[in-house]
């Protein structure tokens, strides 16, 4: 009995929404306190007429703000849920397409494997090359270049996630045993990721002198915690929801042939 795509997609949307909510809670708990520390630096700059910051770093907190801080915090949470749903939709389509090829015990295991690959390829890898920054860091004149580099690393991460399993299947077709294939897969992932990290240029920005290093570190850690929460919640929720279909179909057909 095959599984309909619609039922997979619905679970992806629901799991994505839950993941977005979990990420919003993490933003509120761990990211917002660091953002507040960074905004103090931006406010100090605008009070000193921007003299503490190099040119181009003028805070966007100067003058009358377009949106209040409260609206930004609420907007951030809404954005997180929207992002969660969009990621959930993509996750469901990819899961349905590659389900029979994913390793792992049942749909829960497969879901967790896909979430781990997703986190590594589109969240962790770009974060290692172009790390996230709090407000008060980031030269507006280089944002185009940084965005381009970020997108390139993200796409290369996706490419590695596609190429290595494809290579694995080719080797399997030629009768290469599983243990040898796994060793080759790990070696290929390590070599390809090392090439991406070594060959793609990093961010051209320097962190301004008035931003403490521990603030930047705390922010990057908080950002990764939030991203990891989103992927973990997505993998858990989607996996559990998929397992419920399996449990129900077993209950409905206790004497299935």
């Amino acid at each position, binding site marked *: 009995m095959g599984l309909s795509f619609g039922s997979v997609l619905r679970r992806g949307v629901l799991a994505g929404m839950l993941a977005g909510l979990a990420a919003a809670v993490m933003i509120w708990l761990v990211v917002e306190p660091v953002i507040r520390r960074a905004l103090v630096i931006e406010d100090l700059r605008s009070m000193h007429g921007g003299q503490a910051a190099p040119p181009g770093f003028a805070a966007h907190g100067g003058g009358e703000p377009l949106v209040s801080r409260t609206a*930004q915090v609420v907007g951030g*949470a809404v*954005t997180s849920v*929207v992002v969660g749903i969009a990621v959930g939709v993509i996750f469901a*389509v*990819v899961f*349905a397409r590659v389900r*029979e090829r994913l390793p792992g015990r049942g749909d829960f295991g497969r879901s967790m494997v896909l979430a781990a690959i997703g986190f590594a390829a589109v969240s962790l890898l770009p974060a290692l090359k172009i790390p*996230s920054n709090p407000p008060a860091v980031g030269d507006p004149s280089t944002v185009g270049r940084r965005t381009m580099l970020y997108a390139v690393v993200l796409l290369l991460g996706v490419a590695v996630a596609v190429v290595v399993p494809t290579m694995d299947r080719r080797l*399997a077709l030629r009768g290469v045993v599983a243990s040898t294939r796994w060793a080759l897969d790990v070696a290929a992932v390590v070599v390809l990721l090392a090439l991406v990290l070594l060959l793609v240029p990093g961010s051209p920005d320097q962190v301004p002198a008035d931003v403490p290093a521990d603030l930047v570190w705390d922010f990057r850690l908080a950002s990764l915690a939030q991203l990891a929460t989103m992927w973990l919640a997505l993998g858990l929720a989607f996996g559990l929801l998929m397992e419920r279909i399996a449990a129900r179909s077993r209950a409905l057909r206790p004497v299935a042939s």
Partner: protein
Amino acid sequence: MERKGHFAMTTVASASAVPSDTAVSVPVWAWALLAFAVFALYFVSQENGALLSAPAAQMLHELTHDARHALGVPCH
């Protein structure tokens, strides 16, 4: 192509019980939906005036600001 893949699955992964049971057929519209989801991600994380008017883009930037920072996408 598809059949070849299936053949490979049954021969190589013969340990798993019923390989065909795990396959889900993905309709063509699903890929359009995936493209739309990618577009939505671009819109909330990166749209800064390429598609919207400048004031609208700035409003969107300010509203999504905290999440953009948290998600680690280059913001400003």
